[in-house]
């Protein structure tokens, strides 16, 4: 029997494929074909951002609400730029995280938004599962822009897009993710996404940054950063949360950077020479990643940000079911 690579399978099914997701709640719900389709769509949209007039009428007349319960600069801006480049009308709502303090539940708020008939609600929320709750109670498409410690699908998609642009293929790559895996929705989505596309995902950090069952998600939990980074094609560091009073996860940032920070010597010694350096941002320079690495050879951190707009354009376009009307300009 002929064995097909993941990419090969993707090409085989391409003709009969249809994107059917109304919501983007997580990478978990996406098939390999879905992911490739999103990435292919994103690549085709990327060029729009380089035009002198960065606007296509594709989502003209569509109403998109950015509903952010947690502070966010880049993700919110990225979604907003993506929506505006597609000519959608966008509105931003920043809300307090705790529905109890507002005196209105998330469902109530959502129903009120729904009454104004938006087409897409992009939600970031501190509670894992909040986007799914919203999806069950409103008619609009829901896009998860990060929920608790659960998922951040658009981030993982832009990571995959960036790696694919550089490496051509994700299957067989060794991807190292270093940092607070337990509390990172980015890591969670990246583990699911990269392993779906056939990469080997290694995670590393102190045991306080690990949770049970990471192996079941598909990750290989490494005992040291050196082990994770050995022969790695991609090295990603996660932002270390400076403020965490209730749970003593690490003794100090100083010690963390010494044992788990990504620096030039480590990469030189263990990683492949052409390894890509990634970070979901914002970077604590000198903590999880040294400046010479962040700004150095192999760093694609700013490309991640650029691709973020393209991926989000693709998501907005695909959940609206606009297939076939692409190419209008």
């Amino acid at each position: 029997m002929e064995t097909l690579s993941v990419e090969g399978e993707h090409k085989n099914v391409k003709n009969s494929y249809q994107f059917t997701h109304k919501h983007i709640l997580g990478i978990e719900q996406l098939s390999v074909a879905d992911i490739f389709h999103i990435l292919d769509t994103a690549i085709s949209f990327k060029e729009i951002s380089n035009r002198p007039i960065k606007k296509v009428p594709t989502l003209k007349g569509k109403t998109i609400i950015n509903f952010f319960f947690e502070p966010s600069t880049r993700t919110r801006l990225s979604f907003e730029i993506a929506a505006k480049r597609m000519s959608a009308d966008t509105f931003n709502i920043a809300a307090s995280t705790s529905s109890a303090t507002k005196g209105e539940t998330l469902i109530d708020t959502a129903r009120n938004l729904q009454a104004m008939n938006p087409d897409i609600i992009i939600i970031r929320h501190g509670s894992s599962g909040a986007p799914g709750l919203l999806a069950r109670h409103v008619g609009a498409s829901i896009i998860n822009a990060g929920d608790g410690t659960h998922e951040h699908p658009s981030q993982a998609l832009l990571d995959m897009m960036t790696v694919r642009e550089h490496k051509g293929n994700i299957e067989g790559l060794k991807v190292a993710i270093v940092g607070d895996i337990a509390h990172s929705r980015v890591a969670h989505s990246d583990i699911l996404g990269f392993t779906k596309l056939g990469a080997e995902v290694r995670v590393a950090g102190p045991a306080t940054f690990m949770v049970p069952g990471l192996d079941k998600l598909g990750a290989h939990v490494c005992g040291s950063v050196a082990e994770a980074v050995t022969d790695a094609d991609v090295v990603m560091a996660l932002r270390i949360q400076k403020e965490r009073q209730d749970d003593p996860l690490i003794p100090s940032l100083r010690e963390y950077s010494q044992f788990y920070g990504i620096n030039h010597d480590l990469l030189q010694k263990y990683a492949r020479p052409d390894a890509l350096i990634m970070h979901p941002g914002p970077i604590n320079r000198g903590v999880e990643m040294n400046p010479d690495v962040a700004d150095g050879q192999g760093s694609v951190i700013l490309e991640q940000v650029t691709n973020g707009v393209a991926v989000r354009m693709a998501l907005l376009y695909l959940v609206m079911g606009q297939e076939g009307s692409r190419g209008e300009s």
Partner: protein
Amino acid sequence: MTTVKSIVLQNGRLLDPVTGVDVKGDLWIEDGVIVPARETIPDDSLVFDVQNKWIVPGLIDMHVHLREPGEEYKETIKSGTMAAAAGGFTAVACMPNTIPVNDCASVTRFIIEKAAKEGSARVYPVGAISKGSKGTGLAEYGELKEAGAVAVTDDGLPVFDSQLMRRAMEYAGSHDLLVVSHSEEMSLSQNGSMNEGVVSTRLGLRGIPAAAEAIMVYREIALAELTGQRTHIAHVSTAAASDLIAQAKAKGIRVTAETTPHYFTLTEEAVADYNTSAKMNPPLRTEADRQAIREGLQNGTFDAIATDHAPHSVLEKELEFDQAAYGIIGLETSLALSLALVRDGVIDELRMVELMSSAPARILKVAGGTLAEGAVGDVTVIDPEKKFVFTKELILSKGKNSPFLDWELQGKAVLTVMGGRITHTEL
């Protein structure tokens, strides 16, 4: 609800763990008491033919939350005991985490008077261990006991201070009150939403490790040994805690324990897709834990099946998972789920009745738990074959927060008699 002079149940299967009786026969209740069969049936008697049904001592749920006083929108003594009667229970012990907390005689008396007036089951109030369940200073156990409390607990919360727990056991012993422990090491559980494990990682929810229960169960056992007083461990969910209790019992320490239908029926997988009706504390655990709980029911580690019936309204449950309240209802599903244990061969019929009636009566030192002549006329008739779909519309509790919603269940209480009064009938 009917009160008649006598009730005669004919041709049933009589099951009494106290006397070891398992025979086909009749049961007579007269003036609220179980009496020997007479030659002729008096004219004003209610007679039921209960062929192919079981006649068991009225079921007793030693761990429920009736929410009254203070949270009547979630449950009242009236609605909660109606749910109890429908589930085959003739008595319930209600936890003190009401508003105000049942930490004094006046609240205990309120509950007892309300139950006498509006209740469809006997209600045994459980008082607080500490004033306001705040974890400092003992509540007035002497007065609580005189008012009718049968035990003390700060349930909903653990007693963090070990010295306070020691004193509670000693002082409760002097008043012949049982101490009930909600065993949770809160610096470990950290307001987690579900069991810590593969599923919590997949869902991105903060987990509660099994160790949070085991650590506190071990402390209670050590204190029970130190004080020599009887101590009851509530709602055990883990294999680890089950092991500790079995060891303590083997050493002769005066500890008893209960578990719930949800721990022997469900696992953490029930939480999948953020179902807040599967959120409770302690949380649903792993399959290995579930198996250990079933084993503990079989080998005598557990003395009782209780429900931890915890009604909430949609206000507390239609929320983000981590912000939703802990707790599920249980009174109307407990019997069917326990009967499934019998069908699965985990326990036999007499053992089930022991776990759901005789043992709770013995541990709480209350009436019932036997069909012996002269015993209180609290009797449940069970149709072990009757199938029903547990729909929202069927639920008598004000809370609809059940993970068993729309399950097809087998086995139902078809007649519940409390002190000679019919509190529920499907005959």
